[in-house]
């Protein structure tokens, strides 16, 4: 379960309040979507939950563990899978190697490769395993990014506008992939989106405005 208590995050030395005293509970295995206008603090909230940055005040607890008390890179490596608006693949590595990256250091290289290939197959791209990202279409790159996010069997999958750069057909494909995996493995899935069509697939819609939760 994800528990957010009195979370506040400021930027520019307090001039910008990105999140203001946010409280939020997300159940295990739940699929929630986070909506709000641009600049309302959606990404900031997701980054705090994913341990990409630390809050100025308040607590984020994931599966009973306070993020301020644990090793964040290990948490990111073992517990979370992140998907960004821009696929953020490493251009110098092939798709397969990109998917292997999160396993690095925790899994033997032979298993790494098999595991990565399994996931590429799951997103339907095993034929492109040895291609470099610049040879792929936007939708394909995002599917590789989904494979990379899921390769370490995360308990929590966080997606920040994963379909923001995609046409509706590819958006649908990516969402189906993520939802399918979420149901299959009972992971918690949080998707930030502008698109109501996508948001309404979720069990719960969280609306955020000016750094505060407007409605759940």
């Amino acid at each position, binding site marked *: 379960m994800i528990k957010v208590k009195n979370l506040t995050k400021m930027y520019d030395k307090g001039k910008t309040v990105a999140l203001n005293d946010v409280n939020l509970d997300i159940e295990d295995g739940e699929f929630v979507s986070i909506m709000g206008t641009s600049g309302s603090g959606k990404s900031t909230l997701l980054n705090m939950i*994913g341990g990409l*940055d630390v809050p100025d005040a308040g607590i984020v607890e994931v599966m009973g563990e306070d993020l301020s008390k644990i090793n964040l*890179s290990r948490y990111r490596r073992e517990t979370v899978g992140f998907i960004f608006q821009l696929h953020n693949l490493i251009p*110098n590595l092939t798709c397969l190697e990109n998917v292997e*990256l999160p396993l690095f250091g925790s899994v033997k*290289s032979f298993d790494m490769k098999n595991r990565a290939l399994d996931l590429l197959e799951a997103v339907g791209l095993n034929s492109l395993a040895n291609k470099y990202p610049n040879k792929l279409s936007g939708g394909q790159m995002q599917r590789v990014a989904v494979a990379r996010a899921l390769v370490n069997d995360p308990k929590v999958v966080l997606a920040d506008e994963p379909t923001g750069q995609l046409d509706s057909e590819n958006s649908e494909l990516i969402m189906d992939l993520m939802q399918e995996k979420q149901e299959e493995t009972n992971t918690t899935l949080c998707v930030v989106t502008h698109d109501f069509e996508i948001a309404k697939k979720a069990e719960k819609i969280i609306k955020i405005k000016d750094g505060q939760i407007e409605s759940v």
Partner: protein
Amino acid sequence: MGLLFFSFALKNIFRNKWRSTFIIILLVIGIFALLFSEASSEISGNLLDNVINESMMNSSFGVNDNLSSLIRNQSLSNSDVNSIDAGVLANESSSLDSINMSNIDEYRKEMTKGVKMFFFYLNLFFVFIGSIIIMVAMLKAVGERTREIGVLKSIGWTNLRVSGLILLESLFQLFMAWFVVTVLLLIFYMTNGHTINETFVNTLHMNISIVYRIFAVTFLTSLFIPIIGVILPLLRVFRIKPDEAMRY
């Protein structure tokens, strides 16, 4: 797992040919600068040995003391030199002569040590300058990859691992620079080998082992260039938060 790490580093080098070429050229220049300062240190130490040897010979036979006065001019207050002169003036006493010999010997050692010291600092200076140039190049290269570093950190790579990758890359580049330097020197040797033998071994009485030492010292010293050169870029890796890095 180590394999991917290595191939990652190599791919970053080979898939960014211009950047790598630029850094390797800088390294090659740095290594040659080190080589020259190291070689000058050895050669001048050797030359000095020969000069003083000669002057000692001449003085003790009383034929010509130009060289010993030349040494005296260089350090007027040096009591050793005064005693050498005293010895030269009173060169009929053989017991005094043997004292002079040991004085001159000491003096020569001092002088050689001084010259080598000077070149040691010159060497440090080259390491320093070389490091700064590489640091600027690396800072730029790491700066370009800020986003990538953010991605790696966001998928759980530790600062240590990301830094290791960057350090490994610059070490690979150093190996390539060594390779280039070695090839250039070999080409130079094959086309001018005879002259080198003449100059170094015959004229300067340099032992071939000294030549090897020059190369060993140069290559060892040059190891510090990329290590010092990546310190600042690595600090950046440690400081930046993944979400911030990905906004680039």
